């Protein structure tokens, strides 16, 4: 009996000692939970940031081998309408020719461009975006020879009378037409450059102008394309436009070749 009383007293004593401050306890519990989950949240945030950073770095460092959809669209616009050529390029274009001068010469452009075979220009709106793997390899100097379909052998006729040698070179328009067709299909800047170069070398400046323009629209970083573009304009008598183009390109790229050409045009060394 006595032990029971002592037990009850002990129970009462311990209960008195055990005073619960629930609100304080809940506050401490909240603090504990925050402390527990803080490292987890921090880790998640850090990992997310790390992944995002890696993806951004990777996407920046990825080489731009294929024309962007924007460029393709722009190419289409150029092909569809002359007026769209002068439309300012949107958003992400790093380097794009200012086509304002073309707008200023919009009427003469008709005079410049319509060669007999330039009907291909109408078809260029069928340009399709293709995967980079489908693109032909970049055209190099050596490739220049390889890319060309084998030309018919020059027929050498020897004249026994005057002992002179006449070389008849057949220029097959079908070969370049085939390349133009491929360019329409692939929109490969290197191929466009090749065609522009070909026409320029064959003194067809209106076509070289056209293809240099298209090449610039596909890839605005090819120096040679800009040079051919300016040279073609000069050859077509549009020296002012050629100068403007070169000045614009120099301001964007600082190209030494372009500076040299501009200098020659200004001095009248290049006509």
């Amino acid at each position: 009996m006595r032990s029971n009383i002592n037990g009850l007293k002990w129970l009462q004593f311990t209960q008195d000692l055990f005073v619960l401050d629930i609100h304080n306890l809940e506050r401490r519990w909240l603090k504990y939970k925050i402390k527990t989950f803080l490292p987890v949240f921090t880790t998640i945030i850090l990992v997310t940031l790390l992944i995002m950073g890696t993806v951004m770095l990777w996407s920046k460092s990825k080489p731009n081998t294929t024309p962007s959809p924007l460029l393709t669209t722009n190419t289409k616009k150029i092909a569809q309408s002359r007026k769209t050529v002068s439309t300012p390029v949107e958003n992400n274009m790093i380097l794009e020719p200012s086509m304002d001068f073309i707008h200023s010469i919009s009427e003469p452009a008709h005079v410049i461009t319509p060669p007999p075979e330039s009907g291909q220009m109408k078809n260029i709106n069928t340009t399709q975006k293709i995967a980079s793997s489908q693109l032909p390899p970049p055209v190099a100097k050596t490739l220049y020879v390889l890319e060309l379909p084998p030309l018919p052998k020059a027929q050498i006729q020897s004249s026994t009378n005057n002992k002179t040698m006449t070389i008849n070179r057949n220029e097959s328009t079908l070969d370049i037409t085939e390349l133009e067709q491929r360019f329409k299909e692939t929109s490969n800047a290197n191929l466009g450059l090749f065609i522009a170069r070909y026409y320029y070398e064959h003194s067809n400046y209106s076509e070289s102008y056209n293809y240099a323009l298209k090449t610039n629209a596909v890839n605005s970083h090819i120096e040679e394309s800009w040079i051919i573009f300016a040279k073609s304009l000069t050859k077509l008598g549009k020296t002012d436009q050629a100068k403007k183009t070169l000045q614009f390109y120099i301001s964007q790229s600082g190209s030494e070749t372009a500076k040299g050409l501009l200098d020659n045009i200004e001095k009248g060394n290049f006509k």
Partner: protein
Amino acid sequence: MDNSLFSKPRDLFLDIVNPKDYVQIDSVSHMYQSLKNSVQKPLKMILLYGRPGTGKSMLLHKLHHDLSKHQKVFMISTPIVDEDDFLRVLAQNIFGHAPREVMTLNRFLELSDALSLPIIPIVLLDEAQLYSASLMEKIRLISDARAIKFVITLHKTDKEDVIAKEHFQTRIWESIELQNASHDELKVYIQKKLLKFNCFDVANMFNDKNIKLISTLTKGNYRETNKLLYSLFSLYCWFEENNPNTIHYNALKHKWIEMAAIHTGLIRA
């Protein structure tokens, strides 16, 4: 408050060593049986050791409770550090002799020889790590003389392990180590304790997740578990009185278990 569903379970988990509250768990029952068998053998000293809160004292009390029905058993729960007092208390309780003069070891052994009891009496010493080295030496001599059979309990901590080695290792004939409860053992312990006192509703509130959390917080320590559950049921009593809508009767709230752990110091917040 006393009519609360949770007041009875709360009081069950008060940290009081009572052999009647002993809960039979398989591993502990096995230990207890081997301890009982050891006591029956002609051994001089039996050591029961383990980390604090593993149930040593409870086992010793249970042994005392069970053996005292059949033979002379004396238990010293709180260590008597004075040597003279220790021997005097033993002489009085074992031999029924209350000496007026100072009780020396020789006098004690003479008394033992003179009485020559047919069955060697058993003395249970709890918290034996608190005894001085010289008193432990006397205890060893008494057990060597087969005057008394000692069952002692020791805390097994790094420091006390050294003491155990120095004073007991060569003299111990049998030692039993108690371990902390596993997850399943703790579940059995809690539920058996509640069911033993007809707290069926509360026993059903413990699910595996609750037990796992409790086991993690207390590391299977029985004393810590008792403290935690006492705090937890106190919280339940409070909420039952002040905000009964917050109580879910199908499971214990993790939040409240953690709050109880914060209150008892198991969680530092």
